Every structure is written in C-alpha cells, then in structure tokens.
C-alpha cells in the first residue's frame, strides 16, 4: 500500500516537473459543434432538443443506457470544470489544467466517446467528427499555449476518415488521430482499416486508441446492474479486444513507423494480456504469420496512458507491472474532468520510480510521440 506522506505538500512536488496530459476531455456542446456542421446535419442537430448540455445524463441516470450515473449519484462534483452540467469553454480548460498541475494537454472529444458505440449509423459519426474538427480548430485549440487536439476518426466510414486525415494534414493543432475502441466492429486490426494506419504513418500522426463508455450496458452481454461492473469490465474489454486484434493481425509489422497509444484502462491489465497472449501464441503461431516476435513484445512497443492508475494496489505488484510495460511506454493521462480522473501526483508519489522515470512518464514520452 502507498503510505501517506503528510510532511509533503502535493502541489509543491509538481513545480519541478513539466507535465503533459495525454488524455483530457473537452466537454463540447451539441449546440457549439452544430454550428460547424454541414446540412442536413446542422438542422437535424440544432432541432434535436439536445439543449446546451455537455454531458449531463439526467435521464440516463434514472433509466440507464450506460449503467448509471457517472457522478456516482451526486458524490462527484467538479470545481474547475463545467462538467457535467454545462458545456466547457476554453477558459475552463485552462483553469482545470492549472488546478490539477498540467502544463500541456491533449484534448479528446467527449461526445465522440458516446457516438463511437452507435455502430448502426456511421454517417452521423462522420458528420459530428468533421464539425468537431472545425469547431475545435476555430475556437478551442491553441498549440502555442499547450492546448493540442486529437482528431476523432469515424473509422466505420473509412472514406470520411481519410477526408479528416487530409483535413488535419497541415494543422499543427492536431497531433494525433483518435480511435474510440468501444464499438469497433470488426475490431481495429481488420485490414479494412489499413488505409487509415498507412495515412497516419505517412503523416507522422500517432494512432491513439481510447476506450469508451458507449454501449457499456451490453458491451458483450446484457444484464449487469451497476456501473462499477460495466465500467470495470467494459473499459478493459474495449481496449484489450483492440490490442489483441492489432497485434495478431500484424498492424505493427504492416506499419512499423506508426506510433500506437492506448488510453484509459490503467496499466495492470497489460502484463496480464501480454502473458496470456504469449501463452496462446506459443501454441498457435500459425494464426499470426506476420509476427516476427512474441505478441507481448509488440504490446510493450505501444504506449499507454496511466489513468486510472491502480495506486492502491500492492506496491511490489504495481512496480512489477511498470517494469514489464516499461517506463518508456507510459505517459501520464488525467482523463479530467471525468469522474475517475488522475492528478500527476499519482505518478510523482510512486515510491519505486526514479526522477528520470517520473519525467519520462510525465512529459518526455508524450513530447517525443506527439512531437510537441
């Protein structure tokens, strides 16, 4: 267990670190994004009675479509964000960054996390993603001030996704492409997505795979009753399924210069997945003929956001997980202002990391991968 060090003020410990947040969420509103949509989506969205809400789930909290309330039924509130009651503003993003001790941030759309689970309608996702790109460029992103963006990729529509990659090619504000792992069917190692990875590799844009809460109620089966069940399992399943698919289908061999990042499932699942997949591969290598090494070695070539870091786990166990994944593969991520966000202190407080390793995780890996 981590021990509390009362003699040390947490805020002060952060002053000596430059912190880059690999995963912060911008709570865009439907109204704001609709302004940038093409017809017929503009009229449809504006008339869809979404109101100004950014993320609040009043109705779903009572009749849940995602197993309950993110704010734990009123327990969780945010002082430095408008979430979940109102849309975010660029000023509030800076306020939030300062409050948790972040110097630079990578913003990921909040609403696309929900949209990606709606596999029945890729046209709607594409319309949203294209408008989001323009809205964020025009009103929010500010790379000179450390506010960077990830371009949402509506991968169900490869053609529209290619158009988005063309659109952001010369926009320095976009430093990566974001693939929401929830809802991706077929999984993201399928050859149909090859052109997207090829283009990302060509543009030097890392592919950031971000788990998501959409469709959590029935992420593989229906009938869970509480969010603690679906959030614990569903977030993991969404990332694990795509990691396995990417590795076994040989995406890292097909596109060796593509940087691959996975966000938001903590880190302790990674050694478990590595060892299980390696064990299977020793018995069935003929099913992954593109691989030149064991699956686990590709998995540690990927990068991982640390949040939600399992800091209450046995320290020796957590240290072993860090060793197996490698501090050169980890990057701090807050997930702010979501309910289970992490401050950079989750990294600085770890007793087994050297100063150099903390700096790697807090900024240097992200700086290198996203060319910041």
């Amino acid at each position, binding site marked *: 267990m981590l021990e509390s060090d009362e003699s040390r003020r947490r805020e002060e410990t952060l002053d000596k670190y430059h912190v880059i947040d690999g995963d912060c969420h911008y709570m865009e509103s439907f109204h704001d994004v609709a302004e940038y949509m093409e017809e017929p989506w503009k009229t449809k969205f504006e008339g869809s009675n979404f109101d100004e809400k950014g993320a609040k789930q009043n109705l779903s909290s009572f009749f849940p479509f995602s197993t309950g309330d993110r704010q734990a039924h009123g327990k969780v509130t945010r002082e430095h964000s408008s979430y979940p009651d109102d849309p975010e503003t660029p000023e509030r993003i800076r306020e939030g960054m300062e409050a948790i001790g972040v110097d630079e941030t990578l913003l990921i759309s909040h609403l696309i996390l929900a949209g990606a689970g709606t596999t029945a309608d890729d046209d709607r996702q594409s319309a949203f993603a294209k408008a989001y790109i323009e809205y964020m460029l025009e009103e929010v992103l500010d790379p000179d001030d450390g506010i960077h963006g990830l371009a949402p990729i509506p991968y169900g529509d490869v053609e529209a996704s290619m158009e988005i990659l063309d659109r952001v090619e010369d926009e320095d504000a976009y430093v990566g492409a974001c693939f929401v792992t929830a809802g991706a069917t077929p999984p993201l190692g399928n050859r149909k997505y*090859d*052109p997207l990875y090829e283009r990302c590799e060509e543009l030097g844009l890392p592919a950031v795979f971000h788990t998501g809460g959409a469709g959590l109620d029935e992420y593989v089966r229906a009938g869970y009753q509480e969010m603690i069940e679906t959030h614990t399992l569903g977030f993991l399943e969404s990332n694990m399924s795509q990691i396995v698919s990417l590795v076994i289908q040989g995406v890292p*061999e097909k596109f060796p210069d593509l940087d691959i990042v996975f966000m938001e499932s903590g880190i302790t699942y990674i050694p478990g997945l590595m060892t299980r997949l390696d064990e299977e591969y020793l*018995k069935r290598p*003929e099913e992954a003929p593109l691989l030149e090494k064991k699956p686990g070695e590709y998995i540690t070539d990927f990068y991982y956001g640390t949040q939600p870091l399992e800091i209450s786990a046995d320290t020796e166990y957590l240290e072993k997980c860090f060793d197996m994944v490698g501090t050169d593969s980890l990057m701090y991520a807050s997930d702010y202002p979501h309910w289970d966000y992490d401050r950079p202190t989750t990294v600085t407080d770890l007793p087994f990391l050297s100063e150099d390793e903390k700096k790697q995780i807090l900024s240097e890996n992200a700086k290198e991968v996203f060319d910041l």
Partner: protein
Amino acid sequence: MSAEELIEVKAADAFDDGEREIVEVNGAEVGVLRVDGEYHAVRNRCLHDCGPVAEGAVGKKLVGEFVEPGKRVEKDYDGDQPIISCPWHGWSYDLETGEQLADDDIVLPTYDVVVEDGIVYVANE
C-alpha cells in the same frame, strides 16, 4: 569432448518416407523421422510440458506476406521448412533447427542422422 557414438536405428531401405522410429540416446528418447527424403532427429520431450513431441504431427511452416494495405495477408505453407508439433498442446518446432516457431529462444534438442553401409544411425555427441 567425447567421441561421437552412433546409435543404430534401422536399415535405410526399410525406412519409408513419412516413417519414424523412437530410439534411446544416452538415456533420452529421440524420434528419428524421414520427411521428404530427409532424415531428422529430435528429442521426444516437449519443452512445454514434457509431451511426446516426436510422435506428433509433421507439417510445414505457415508463412504470411503483407502485400498491400487493405488486402488480405497472403498465407501459404513453406515447403522448405518441415515442422513437428507436440500432440499435447501444439507447441511446434522447426525439424531442422529445433527452434520453437513462436520463440526461437526455445530450442528442442536435435541430433545428427547419418547413413552408413545402408544403416541409419543417430549421433550421440
């Protein structure tokens, strides 16, 4: 280094292609196989869980080639690389080198096979 000892397997003209014999070499079971006219000999003890690997299926290594983005990976058997698979869990080894197909740091012991005066022998070095 001790002198090479030859352990008799059987007459070459009685060793049909596709056949195998299990012999004892220095206290260990060794499988001697004739595959596509070539002799191979491997330890009959899988490095996974000690299964009788030398009694398992013989096949070819499946290889894949990435042709271009969006196209199916082209898959075929490499006729030059015979493999043997343990019947217990499927661990597979290159018959010539003994290397586990998934991890070449894992190497099943292999033995030289010689034919002298019409008799097939396994070498025990």
